[in-house]
């Protein structure tokens, strides 16, 4: 399945990287977060467990807030709010 990035509502975006392995999910997540505005939310859908560790660590380092996490059958859905530290 190909990578999908789309706007789902005003200020809300979806990044689906299901089927991708490292480093693609974390790279696409970083790029998607760079593209959206401050305060916008990004829902990331992925199924590569180790990418989750990297995405969580990246958000923690940069300051983005992961405000919702769900897992079902090996598929992860995380919602991230973009925060810009000044």
């Amino acid at each position, binding site marked *: 399945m190909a990578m999908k990035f789309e706007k789902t509502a005003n200020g809300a975006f979806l990044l689906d990287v299901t089927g991708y392995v490292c*480093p*693609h999910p974390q790279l696409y997540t970083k790029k998607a977060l760079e593209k959206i505005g401050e305060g916008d939310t990004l829902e990331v859908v992925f199924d590569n467990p180790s990418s989750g560790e990297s995405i969580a*660590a*990246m958000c923690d*380092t940069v300051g983005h807030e992961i405000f919702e996490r769900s*897992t079902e*059958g090996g598929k992860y859905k995380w919602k991230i709010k973009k925060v810009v530290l000044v």
Partner: protein
Amino acid sequence: MEEVPKKNRMWAFIIIGFFSLVSIFTFTLSEYYIYLSAYLWFGFVYGVCLQYGRFCFSSAFRDLFAVGVPRMAVGIMIAMILFGFVSAFVTATGMSTFHAAPYGIHAVIAGFIFGIGMVLTGGCASGSLYKSGEGNGVAMLVILSISVTQAIFVDIGGWFNNLAPQSWHDSAAAKGLPLAINATDGWMDMYLAGYVWNQPTTTYAEVLKFTNPFLSAYISNVLVGIVAPAALVLLWVYLVWVRRSYLKKQARDGKPSNGFLVELQGYWGMIAASKRTAIAGLGLGIAAGLHMFVMKGLQIKFGVQNFGELMPKIGSTFGISIKGTVFDPGYWYVTTQEAQWVGWVFNKLGWENMDNIYFGLNNGIPNPLLNPADWMSVALIGGAAVMALLHNEFKWKAPTRELAMWAIIGGALMGIGSRLGLGCNVGAFFVRVSQGDLSGWMFGVGMIAGAYLGVKFFNWYTERKMAKEVAMCEL
């Protein structure tokens, strides 16, 4: 947390039960199988630790360069220090099975090629094994690509012989190796016998020359060879990738944001940030050290230096090298056993591949069912599968065409890098650094540079794809 289905628990039980039965059943055949079972259970522990900590050497520097995440670089440094501490004791007591490798520019070049490959594939050699245990088809393809490439690469001759300098040819000829090896026919043979074997080997202990074996092992190999460079690497990581965000967060939260103590807290916070990775590093470090100790103990118990001497006693003589040995590192290793099983298959298909140094003189191509290190790799996959099943992270994933392409290309580069460097991220970097071998950091420096180039390429590649998506969604 999602509940673990009963089916997953059952499969985890089946895997553990299978390995237990293999150990018990083979022991009833001959006590010498304990040797293989030791590899098996250490492999299982490696798999458990790797999956638990998502422990992948590839992500250590790739994620640092790509997304600024230091957790795995930290985890690997912790694991190397702990492995160093445990194995220094093993070395000081004369129980080590380790031999230093030749060092030189070839180790850096090999690491560089390997580093590019591991970024393209998405996992290092050990990472791909544990991810195979998660049902990841891309990782399985990577393992296959590494294995096939190595098995072919070590036996290439013909036109490729022209690529070896005359000095390598002459030097290889002068080594007086058995005629059956034909050391002047085969690029890898001339590379090994004509170049690599001429390079020096040494450890920090040999350089610093302490007379007390414990001082020698702990001060030279551990403190100078691992702790000091690891602390410097982590300081570099902190200053370049972590410090800025950390100080900003301190300021945002109204906490002190300058001063030496604040910096020290930031440095320590980076090290302690990923508990999972640190625990995995701890487990891997201790297990890898104990593994060495146990294998040496078994060699003493059975009065042998190598498993090749035990093979005839359990009724198998096929695939033993001219020296009477098979690949039996006595510690954690990944890539050679992968080359061997494909080499064994090729041989059975009619390819005469025992006329080279790698298979014919040193490692052999024993039946994979009797290959000690293969038992370790299979059990590593099993250990990772058990962990993935029990955490509901097991999922069969077929590779897409795009990822299959990267797996094959990257796996081939990793296979070539492994053979040029006489090991992968584990054998040529992790183990060697932890044993105070000078060549370890050389491979590591090359691997980091290769990872950097690989990330640059993937940044460009993913940016192009992202730009297309962004153009369609009216940002």
